[in-house]
Every structure is written in C-alpha cells, then in structure tokens.
C-alpha cells in the first residue's frame, strides 16, 4: 500500500503535478462557492473558453515557452469585464449574450492556433491541460496568484456575501456593489487562468462548480461549504492524479471524474438526510 502511494512521488514531475493540483483544487473550490451561489456556472465555462485567443497570441509570439499565462490572464480579465458590461442590462438575456460572445471568441482562438503546424497537440493541451509538464515557474505562478485570490476573498468576504445574497441591502448600505461584482468576476477569471495548465479549458467548470456544489449539498453554513469544497477539490486532485498514473488515463479527466463521484456521494447523502 505504502509503495503504491510512494512510487509516483519518485518522479519530480509527479511531485510538481500534485502540488499544482492541490493548490488549484483549493482555489477553484473557494471561488467556485461564489460561482455556485450566484449562478455563474455558465459564466465560468465561457470564461475558460474565451481565454483561447489570448493563449494563441502568446503562443504565436513565443511558441510553447511563450508568455501563455500572461496572454490567458489578459484575455480572461478582458472577457470578464466585457461579459460584466453586457450583463448590465439590455434586450438580450445574459446567458444568450455570454453564449454569443464566448463562442465567437473561442472560434477566434482556434483559428489563430490553427495557423501553427503542431496545432492539434497544442490545442489538446490547452483544452485538457498538461499537468505533467508543470514547471517550477508554473508552480510559482499558481501559488502566487492562487494566494492572491484567496486573500482577496478573505478580505472582501462579508461584502461578497451581501452583494450575492441581497443586492438591495448592499445598495442601502451604500456598498460599491458594481466594483465588488467586477472584482468577483476578475477573481473567477484569474482562477480559471491559474487552473488552465492543470485542468484545461474544457473541464474547468467542473473544478469550479462540482466541489462547491457538493459542499452546498452537505452543509447549511457558507464557511463550512467552502471548507468541504476545498477538501473535495484537493482530495480529488490527489486521487485523480494517482488514478491517471496507475491506469494511464488523462490526468485532468481523472481529477474531474473523482470530483464528480464525490458529488454523487454528496447528493445521495443529502437525499438520505432529507428523508
């Protein structure tokens, strides 16, 4: 048993992958709690796809070693602000506006990447992550930006709760609700970018919402919901990686499958409890 657990740890790339996956699992779960409570699941998914042109431009500049992270970050923040503006009201429903924008932007990204010869491999890495290729520099970015996201959530926790639960009360307190809403959207954007190499754009939503949704089913307290979500996120990351190591399946998909299984258990437990 012990050797089963220790064997993968002999490889540096596995150690880096584990560290990345745990950090991403925790950050996604905490931010994801607000995504679930505010009904922003589709927004998160759209954001994960809309970063593609940013990544593509960075890729065209510098190849695989190009400033992919920064390209993605720029695109994500720009998209978050853009969607935030669209959803401020107008004739189109918000989900329709998001759908139109993100599909168009995603197509632009695919078109850009398709100009490169190694197109399909690169696109696969962006869509499904490439956790075994995580470098020390990647780890530093994940740790730095992940910590920044968590600290910002901690700093504005009570304000985020108020604007999410009762915007009218927030207005009556004269809280700057709009800047806070944009800040939350930007935090989601940064989280998506931080998780990109670990989990990939295609399965990003799962890491954002599945652990948080499981926590939501299991407790009635927000702080506990975040804690449970973080444990599920980190735990699934570790279990998923072992799974992918031993049965040779894509690691991002393995991690998401474990979180989905956790959600299934949480759903059954909450059902049994209610009966």
């Amino acid at each position: 048993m012990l050797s089963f657990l220790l064997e993968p740890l002999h490889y540096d790339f596995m150690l880096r992958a584990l560290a990345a996956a745990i950090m991403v699992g925790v950050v996604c779960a905490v931010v994801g709690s607000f995504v679930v409570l505010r009904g922003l699941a589709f927004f998160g998914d759209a954001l994960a796809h809309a970063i593609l042109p940013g990544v593509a431009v960075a890729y065209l500049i510098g190849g695989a070693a190009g400033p992919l992270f920064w390209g993605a970050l720029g695109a994500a923040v720009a998209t978050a602000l853009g969607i935030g503006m669209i959803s401020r009201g107008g004739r189109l429903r918000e989900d329709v506006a998001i759908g139109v924008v993100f599909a168009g932007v995603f197509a632009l990204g695919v078109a850009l990447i398709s100009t490169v010869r190694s197109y399909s491999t690169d696109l696969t890495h962006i869509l499904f992550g490439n956790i075994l290729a995580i470098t020390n520099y990647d780890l530093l970015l994940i740790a730095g930006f992940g910590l920044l996201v968590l600290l910002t959530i901690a700093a504005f926790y009570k304000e985020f709760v108020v604007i999410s639960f009762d915007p009218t009360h927030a207005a009556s307190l004269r809280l700057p609700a709009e800047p806070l809403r944009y800040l939350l959207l930007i935090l989601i954007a940064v989280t998506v970018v931080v998780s990109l190499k670990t989990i990939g754009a295609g399965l990003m939503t799962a890491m954002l919402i599945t652990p948080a949704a499981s926590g939501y089913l299991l407790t009635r307290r927000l702080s506990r919901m975040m804690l449970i979500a973080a444990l599920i996120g980190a735990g699934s990351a570790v279990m998923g990686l072992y799974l992918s190591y031993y049965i040779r399946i894509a690691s991002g998909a393995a991690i998401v499958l474990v979180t989905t299984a956790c959600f299934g258990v949480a759903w059954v437990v909450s059902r049994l409890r209610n009966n």
Partner: protein
Amino acid sequence: MITHVDPAHIARRPPEECAALTLTGISADYGKDRPALEDVSFTIACGERAAIVGPNGAGKSTLFKVVVGLMPHTTGDVLVHGHSHHAGDCPSIGYVPQSEGVDWNFPLTVLDVALMGRVKEIGWLRRPARADHEAALSALRQVGMEKLAGRHISALSGGQQQRMFIARALAQGADVLLLDEPFSGVDVEAQTAIFDLLDDLRARGVTVLISTHDLQTATTRFDRLLLLNRRLLADGPAESILTPENLAAAYGGRLTFWRDGQAVTVATDECCP
C-alpha cells in the same frame, strides 16, 4: 450636487415637522420609452407609518429600489433626514425584501443575516467583532428571534422571515424602514405580530414605509396611504383617498368595490402579475 426643488414638489407637511424621507419629483425608467415612475413626490414624517398601495406592476418595488439607490432615477432627488442620496453622509435605510425575491437556500443562519446590518460599521477588511455579534443578537432579541439565531434561514416561517430582516435593519441602526410586500405569504397571526413590532418601533421614532397590493390591510392598519400607479395618484388617510375615481385610476376596470359606512371592501379580479 445642487438640487432645484420645484415648489409644487415640496410636501404639504409643515417644515418644522421632522421629515424622515422626502422624494422630490422622482422619475425612473426601465429603458427608453418604458417609464416606471413619473414625477413622484412625497414626504414621510419621522415616526409615521405609511403604505404605498397599487396594483402589481405599479412601480412599488421600483420605487423602493430607487429610494435605496439600487436603481438610478432620471429626475428628482431622494432625501433621508434632509440629506441627499448623492451626498456621502446620507443615513442608510433599512430594507426588508420581498420574500419571493430571496434565495432561502443560501447557506446563512439568522444571525448571519442580522450581522449583515453591521457590514458598514465593521468596515473594510475587518471581521465582525464581539460588539457586532452583540448588536446583531440584541436586534434579534428586539424582534423576538434571539432563540432562532443559529437556525438556517430556510427553516423560518413567513412572519419570522420578516422579523429577521427587520432585525437586520435595526442592527444597521436605520430609523427609516422599507418593507416590500411584507404580508404576502404571512398568516393573520404572524401579521399581527409584525404590526405589534411596528407599533413598538413607532414608539421609538422609527419611520416605516411599506408597499402592498393588499388594500384591506393597508386600509385598516395605516395612517396614510399613497396610491401609486407609475404616478402618485392620491396621498392621505384611507377614508379620504379610496374614492371610486382614485381606485379606478389606479386599478383600471379590474376592480369592484362597495362602500358601507366606514369599511371599504375591495375585490379585485386580478390575482398575480
């Protein structure tokens, strides 16, 4: 910002009386050519208890959103104790939301919601201190909800929901309270409890403005009614403003009513929006 007040908009109450909430010529819209409110002006005196009545879609909730500053208005100004909305020192207003508009599955306890009233006092980057917990608990005690502090909000009855939000407003230190449709989904007993609480608050000088489409309750329980349908159609004590002409103007042809002695019985064939 300097606000020019049209003399016609100055409320008819004598100026020496304390004005808790003043609206001067408020107009708002949902977008181009979709007016929501037109030229609404009134003053609510300190400690007064008034009800805004009107059919569904008359702009009652919109009016409240404008008053708390959630929705912009195109003309006019909102003054709380004489301070303009646009000024930084405008005192905050307590808001009790419509029950249907609240996500009751949100992971919060009753105490968590009462603590939300303290967010401004707690200040940026800080967590609630012991004094804030005590203030929230004391507010819950005043509305008779202290024992339920640890309960999840989904486990409350309609009346308890209302009282919890009133506690939040008290924790906020607000002395002007807006209650949006507080009696929908609330049984008579709970309604009586809420009115006892409102009587209590009135004795302490708290001003209460509620919105309701329930003319029956409004007529029997409030000193003053404001009849709204986009415009303010009438303003005064129930017996003087609930005239056939006013009601027809507010509710259109969908309303029948009888007047026997003092009691006004109103039946409407319009149920839901």
